[in-house]
Each structure stands twice: as structure tokens, then as C-alpha cells.
């Protein structure tokens, strides 16, 4: 490439970078960073669908005296560096006053420090790891961390008469280990007696030794913190070894997947799992959301779409209350959020985490499908 080409290239680039900003002057610029391509794209695509569905309603009426929100969704592809670039692009090029996302907790740990430094409020809709909101005063999340969901599940078990538990978890995976820590703390807090703690590997197929030992101790409940594949394996083998209805199986976030029924089939029946949202939750707001989502996208919404849907409304309401498209004012308004959405009643704690776990639904496996536990 010679110098002249270089110059024209630079000018073209300059023009391209200024044009969209001018075009977007019509709306209030809001950005989102989600995984739209690659193996984890399903999450980001669901989130984008939830955001856009909410936007249809919001923009019909308009906010701040009839203005529309101009949402720009950038793809992170699940890559931390690409997520940081997306954040810089959204702030620098689009002048976004608020950012939603990114999809994964580890992406947030990379993006959060950047947006926090630029003082742009950032709301995670699907980031459940501990420490997310400690990144800084501009980082919020609307997704319930597992430490809020698990105690609800355990209380349900206690109400059913569970007094003793055996804890099992995959010890070679950070997600499963942190879920186990939460379960252990919840069991201790509720005064459940822990009879034993058994570990296995995420790729193991044989759990017979651990299960035989657990069975000998006769616990009222067995909790499993692992991804859905090993959880299914544990359940299948537990049934072979004669675990029946007298033992309640309790899963964590990893078990909250329709794949549990696909892999474990009838062996998973009776397992209970806490979930921040459930498609068949009998609540008028929720049924209206599910119907609207189906009408627009011709498929069922999932938890990630529901979380994003609520988040978009929470963000729009904060901008409205702020009275101006100004990041500093929006951040202050966000902190005063009081909203009831498809996930249930919502407010932020002083630490910018969700304040209430009232919306948590305890699900139970029946005939290979999740339903609401009685």
C-alpha cells in the first residue's frame, strides 16, 4: 500500500467513524455487548432478543419527552479483548450513556474496569459470579447471584422435612466449586446436618463409589453442584444403586437446564433446582412477556431473554428519572430503582446487586421436564 492509498484509507475511516454518531443524534445512545457468534452465541442472541422486545414497547411511547432509545449491540464473541474493544467503540463512537452486558462474568471482569473508569453505568444481565459489582460504583447487575438462589431451594427442601444432607460437587471446575461453597454455607446457615462431602471430576462417568458411601449414610437430601452432564451421570447411577423417592436430590445453577431431562430421563425425576425465572410462572406480566416473545421471534424465551427484557425497562426508567441522557445522572437514578418485572420485584442493594430473591422459583423435574415444585 503506498502513501496515497494510506491517506484515502484514513480519510474513509474518519468519515465512517463520524457518520453513525451523527445519524444517531436522533435517539438516546445505549450500548450492549453480547456474545453473538461462536459456541456461546445462544446466550447473547437470547439477550439481544429480550432487549429488543422491551425496546419495541419503550420506543412506542418514548422517554424524556418522546425521544427514542437507539440501541447498538456489539458482538464480543465471548472474547475478553473483543469485549473491551466493543466497550471502547460504544463509548467513543456511539457516545453511549449506558451499557448493558457483557454476557459472561469473566468478560465483565475485563470490561467493567474500562467502563467504570469512563463513568458509564454498566448493567450485567447474566453475570452471576461473586465480585462483579465490586469492580466499581458504575457497575450494576440485575442477575441474581447463586448465593441468592440456593438458599431459597434449600428452604424448600427444609420445609419438606430435610434435616441431613450429603454434598457432592465437581472439584475440577471453578463454576461447580463456587456453587458448592454457596451450598455449604446455605446448609450451615439453615442448620442442616452435613453428613459427608464427596467430590468427582467433571469428565468422570463412574460415581458408584461415592454414591454407595452416601447411600450408606442415609441422608435426607443429596446436593450436586456441577455442570448438567456430570449431574445427569450421578443421577443415572444413583437410581441404579437404589436411591429412591426417600432421598431428595437438589441441583444448583448447572442443573437448571432442559438437557437434564434429555440425558438423565426418568432418573432426574424429583430433583429440585432454584431458578430466577420460569417460563410457566403464573403471573400476568410473565405470561404477557412469553406471548409477545413468541409472537415476535416464533420461539420460547429463556431465562437470559427474560433477564434482559427486565433490564431494558429498568434502564429506560432510570434514564427517564434522570431527566437527561447523562451518564452521571442515570447512575444516580439507577441506584433508586424500584421495578416489578417478569422476574419479580426488583431493586438494587447499596452494592448495586439485586436486593430481593422473591422472584426465585423452585423447579422440580417430572417426566423429564421442569415444573414448579409443590
Amino acid at each position, binding site marked *: 500500500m503506498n502513501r496515497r492509498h494510506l491517506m484515502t484509507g484514513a480519510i474513509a475511516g474518519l468519515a465512517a467513524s463520524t457518520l453513525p454518531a451523527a445519524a444517531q443524534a436522533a435517539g438516546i445512545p445505549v450500548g450492549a455487548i453480547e456474545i453473538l457468534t461462536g459456541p456461546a452465541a445462544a446466550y447473547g442472541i437470547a439477550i439481544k432478543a429480550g432487549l429488543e422486545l422491551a425496546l419495541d414497547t419503550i420506543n412506542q411511547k418514548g422517554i424524556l419527552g418522546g425521544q427514542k432509545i437507539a440501541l447498538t449491540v456489539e458482538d464480543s464473541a465471548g472474547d475478553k479483548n473483543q469485549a473491551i474493544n466493543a466497550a471502547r467503540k460504544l463509548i467513543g463512537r456511539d457516545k453511549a450513556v449506558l451499557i448493558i452486558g457483557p454476557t459472561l462474568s469473566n468478560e465483565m471482569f475485563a470490561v467493567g474496569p474500562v467502563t467504570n473508569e469512563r463513568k458509564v453505568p454498566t448493567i450485567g444481565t447474566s453475570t452471576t459470579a461473586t465480585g462483579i459489582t465490586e469492580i466499581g460504583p458504575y457497575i450494576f447487575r440485575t442477575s441474581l447471584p447463586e448465593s441468592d438462589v440456593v438458599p431459597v431451594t434449600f428452604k424448600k427442601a427444609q420445609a419438606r422435612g430435610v434435616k441431613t444432607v450429603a454434598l457432592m460437587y465437581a472439584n475440577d471446575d471453578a463454576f461447580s466449586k463456587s456453587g458448592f461453597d454457596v451450598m455449604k454455607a446455605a446448609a450451615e446457615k439453615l442448620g442442616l446436618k452435613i453428613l459427608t462431602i464427596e467430590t468427582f471430576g467433571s469428565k468422570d462417568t463412574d460415581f458408584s463409589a461415592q454414591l454407595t458411601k452416601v447411600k450408606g449414610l442415609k441422608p435426607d437430601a443429596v446436593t450436586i453442584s456441577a455442570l448438567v452432564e456430570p449431574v445427569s451421570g450421578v443421577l*443415572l447411577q444413583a437410581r441404579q444403586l437404589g436411591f429412591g423417592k426417600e432421598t431428595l436430590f437438589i441441583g444448583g445453577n448447572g442443573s437448571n437446564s432442559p438437557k437434564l431431562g434429555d440425558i438423565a430421563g426418568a432418573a432426574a425425576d424429583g430433583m429440585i433446582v432454584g431458578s430466577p425465572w420460569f417460563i410457566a410462572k403464573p403471573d400476568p406480566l410473565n405470561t404477557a412477556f412469553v406471548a409477545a416473545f413468541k409472537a415476535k421471534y416464533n420461539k420460547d424465551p429463556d431465562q437470559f431473554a427474560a433477564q434482559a427484557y427486565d433490564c431494558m425497562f429498568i434502564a429506560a426508567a432510570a434514564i427517564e428519572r434522570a431527566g437527561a441522557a447523562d451518564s452521571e445522572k442515570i447512575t444516580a437514578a439507577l441506584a433508586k430503582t424500584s421495578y416489578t418485572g417478569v422476574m419479580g420485584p426488583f431493586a438494587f442493594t447499596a452494592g448495586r446487586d439485586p436486593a430481593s430473591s422473591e422472584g426465585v422459583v423452585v423447579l422440580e423435574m417430572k417426566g423429564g421436564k421442569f415444573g414448579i415444585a409443590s
Partner: protein
Amino acid sequence: MLAQQLVNGVLLGATYALFALGFTLIFGVLRVINLVYGFYFSAGAFMALFLTRQYGWPIVAALPVAAAGAGVLAIALDWVLLTRLRRVGAPELASLMVTLGAVLALYAASTALLGPDIRRLPPDLIGAEAMVIAGVRITAAQVLILVATAVLVGGLIALMRGTRLGLALRAMAENPDAAGLMGIDTGRLAALVSFISGALAGAGGVLIGLNFNAIHPYMGEAMMLRGFVVIIVGGLGDIRGALIAGLLLGIVEVLTAGYVASGLKEAVAFAILVAVLWTRPVGLFGRAVVRRA
């Protein structure tokens, strides 16, 4: 509980032995450490999955067909990967590296093609209900694994020790060049060994997939590490040794998890490998003299 744990251990050990049989055979005769073996294991399971799911075949029909299919696949892949190495008399390390590269490529390609999801054979294929014998629970799939392991070990030993074909195979293992000069068609025998070991891997994949109810492209890789321990402890190329080492490993793992701590299961199993190699570098049952210096 001890009785159940011992049965758990024997069953786990039988799956290890079943997996390792073909792996040790191919080393014993052809002197190659063939890591593609793990792929034949996955391939057998997937063929059975396809036949039972797509065409509703019963397991008695799907098992031999899937095993034979994996055997044919093994002939083709081994021929492509190993013929040249054998011709130039490449050292064992060369076969290890070539097959390592090939098996990783095959796992990745099959994952791209089939997806990483865990699949199950149809649930009504074999009764999942456990039988209770003297307080010990065992399922039909587990009985099938025990019987298959016993029959295959017996059959392989009879083949190697009691037939002219076995004699030819042993001659080839001893010295392929001399065997060739004696009129043994070593190329055809190599293909036969590939077929038998591939079929053993395929049958193992079906049975183990049936027992643990989890079939996915990387299932062979998960077994490979244990397969290595079994054939090294048992003595490379030693069929009876593989059986004993497999059972030993399974029982030790289960007893460690059941009575010591489940987190130490692997640590103890692999510590045994190190201890055996320290005291007996040719394996517990390996012959004292290493054939090739």
C-alpha cells in the same frame, strides 16, 4: 456396603480392562502405541447409537455390527497412518506422535460434525432396573460387561496361544522381518490386528456407553489415560496382565473414594503407576527381558 463397593470396583475395573484389551494387543503385535484407538472406541459407540436410534435395532444386533464397523475403520486409518512408519522401521515414539496428532484431529472433526452434546442409547434398549443379589445391586448392562470382558480375554488368549494364526502373530511380534521370510504375509496380519483391536475398541465403546449412558465424541479420550495405566502396569502387550491390572485399578479407585476421600481417587491410582514402574519397569506381569534393547 463393602460388598457393594467391591462389586463397584470389579465393574469399574472390568470397563478399564475391556477398554485396554485391543490397545495392548496392537502394541504387543505391531509394536505401535496407537492413540487413535480412543477414536475407535467413540466411533463404535456412535455407530451403535445410530443403528439403535435411527433403525430401532436391538442391542444384540447393533453391538456386533458396530464392533465390525469400528474394525473396518481401524484397518483404513491404521493403514494410512502407520504403513509408511512400519516400512521405514520408525521408532515407537514416531507412531506415538503421528497417532496423537491424528486422534486429536479426529476428535475435533467429529465434535464439529456431531456436536459436543452427551447422547444416550434408547432407554428401553436394556433393562435399567438393577437386580439385587445378597444386598448387592447390579444391572443387566454391568453383567454384560463382565461377561464380555471374560469372553474376550479368554478368546484372545486362546487365539494367541492355541491357533496357527496366533503362532503367526507371535512370530510377527518377535521379528517381523524373519516372519516375512518364513512366508507369513505380515501386511495382511497387520490389517487383521488392526481389525481385531478396532472391533474390541468399538465393542467396548458400545458396552461402556450403555453402562454409563453417556456417548460423546471425546469419550475415548477420557478412557485413554486409564487405558495407559492398565497396559503399562499390566505389561505392554500382555492380555492377561491388562485384565488383572484393570481390575486392580478399578478396585483401588473405588475403595479410595469409598473409604479414604473421593478427591484422592486419581492421585492414588496414578501413584500406583509410578510405584509399579519404579519397582518393575516392564510392568507387574511383564517379561523380564525387554525384547528390543
